[in-house]
């Protein structure tokens, strides 16, 4: 076998994993930390991608527009998340499984709205010129854009980790989720914590959307293809475990890529899913686990 046959899937897979990780990162907050099963997360990703498109309409130089689009997408998707939290989710923290169903409804509406607002065949988002080109890795011409996805994911992960670790917020989020009443009576402004967490989690989906818009189409359907894999990544990593999410994202990406290399694109999807399902059967709590003694 040529080295290409190993290097190419490994590098491609890492980039694919990075995108999955980006999509999953926000979920690891809203799902992993807050316990909200947001099936509209994919649509927030779509919102991020459309935001990138709108930024490009204003700043036509794509060299500049993508760097500008990243924070814009973060804020726009974050605001949508905030809106969702304030209007719906806040009433449902005690019924997490039901958040799944409600947000399915929200996702449907957002998709249809996107179909109404934007041209049905989707909108173009252009890659900046500085991402043209490839890097020669052991003879394999590795697309720069893939490197960009990885760097972007790394930056987001680092920022999130730092935020959770060095600000008191990480503790507050976990405390709020674990026992809302107790947190509230411990002086934690749980509503602010909820909103901020949801804002950041959804905002990260927006950032993932910008990355996704450089890979595929920007249209009403784009979010749907990320939602289940992203949830699987969070679950496989161990709910609430950032390092688990990172590892799982990368592993699923690489597995997908190798499977696609050895079999077909369709079969790769199936195999990757089965892999995660079997893994979760073996380790139901994911890669990293927290156990408590609480019974019921």
């Amino acid at each position, binding site marked *: 076998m040529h080295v290409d046959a190993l290097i190419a899937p490994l590098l491609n897979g890492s980039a694919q994993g990075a995108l999955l990780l980006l999509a999953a990162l926000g979920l690891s907050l809203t799902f992993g930390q807050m316990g909200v099963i947001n099936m509209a997360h994919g649509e927030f990703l779509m919102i991020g991608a459309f935001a990138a498109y709108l930024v490009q309409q204003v700043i036509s130089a794509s060299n500049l527009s993508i760097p500008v689009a990243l924070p814009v997408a973060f804020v726009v998707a974050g605001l949508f998340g905030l809106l969702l939290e304030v209007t719906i989710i806040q009433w449902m923290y005690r019924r997490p499984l039901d958040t799944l169903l409600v947000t399915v409804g929200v996702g449907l509406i957002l998709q249809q709205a996107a179909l109404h607002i934007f041209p049905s065949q989707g909108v173009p988002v252009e890659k900046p010129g500085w991402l043209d080109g490839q890097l020669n890795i052991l003879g394999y011409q590795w697309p720069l854009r893939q490197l960009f996805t990885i760097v972007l994911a790394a930056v987001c992960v680092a920022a999130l980790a730092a935020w959770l670790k060095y600000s*008191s917020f990480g503790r507050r989020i976990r405390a709020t989720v674990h026992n809302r009443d*107790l947190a*509230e009576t411990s*002086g934690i402004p749980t509503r602010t914590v909820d909103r901020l967490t949801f804002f950041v989690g959804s905002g990260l989906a927006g950032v993932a959307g910008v990355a996704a818009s450089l890979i595929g189409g920007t249209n009403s359907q784009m979010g749907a293809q990320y939602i289940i894999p992203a949830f699987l990544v969070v679950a496989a990593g161990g709910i609430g475990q950032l390092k688990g999410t990172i590892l799982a994202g990368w592993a699923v990406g690489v597995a997908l890529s190798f499977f696609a290399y050895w079999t077909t694109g369709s079969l790769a999807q199936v195999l990757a899913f089965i892999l995660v399902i079997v893994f979760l059967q073996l380790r139901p709590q994911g890669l990293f686990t927290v156990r408590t003694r609480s019974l019921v």
Partner: protein
Amino acid sequence: MLELTDIEAGYGRTRVLHGVTVPSGKVVAVLGHNGAGKSTLLRLAIGLIKPSKGRVVLDGEDITSLAPNRRVARGMAYVPQGQQSFGQLTTLENLQLVADGRRGGKALIDAQMARFPALKQFAARKAGLLSGGQRQQLAIARALITEPKLLILDEPTEGIQPTIVAEIEQTIMQLAEEGINVLLVEQHIGFALEAAERYVVLSSGHVTQTGEGGKAATSTVRAAMAI
């Protein structure tokens, strides 16, 4: 300091408290049988449930509709019934959580760890793995860290070993002497009344007796509660 006036409250359509009035006092003990509504009253005091009628007044200010965390910011602290702590956080994180943003937070934590040695020993352990009594100690420590003006305690010594019960009882007395107000639910009537300036006996959500605390009250209260 804290006055509850003519409170009606409950859960959903269930009414639990019927026109309950609790006077203010340095240490106020709330006594009563199982299910009398004691915990409900304390939850109402900290703001976890809102009364359908009546007023909650703190230092002359109506706080009836203030959220719990705002009440904490005004110097109230609450130890709920049942050894509650944040199970996914370590013991230390449980304490940091409330110490965050307070001046001398580190020293406050150390002080509580000195009071409850088990917390120091198991600082890095997830609170969910602690024993019941250890969790209860943690809950009390969390409340004390905030250096409250008003401490609300719901059966604080439940599940705690006798030596530490004594320690906690001493602490409560000491805090009261330092001028910190305490609203206390306690099944150890003897202690509760000794510490209390005033007491209230609840029965099925009605106040059946109130009075001055002190040892002398013990027998009258017991008589009242036995009925």
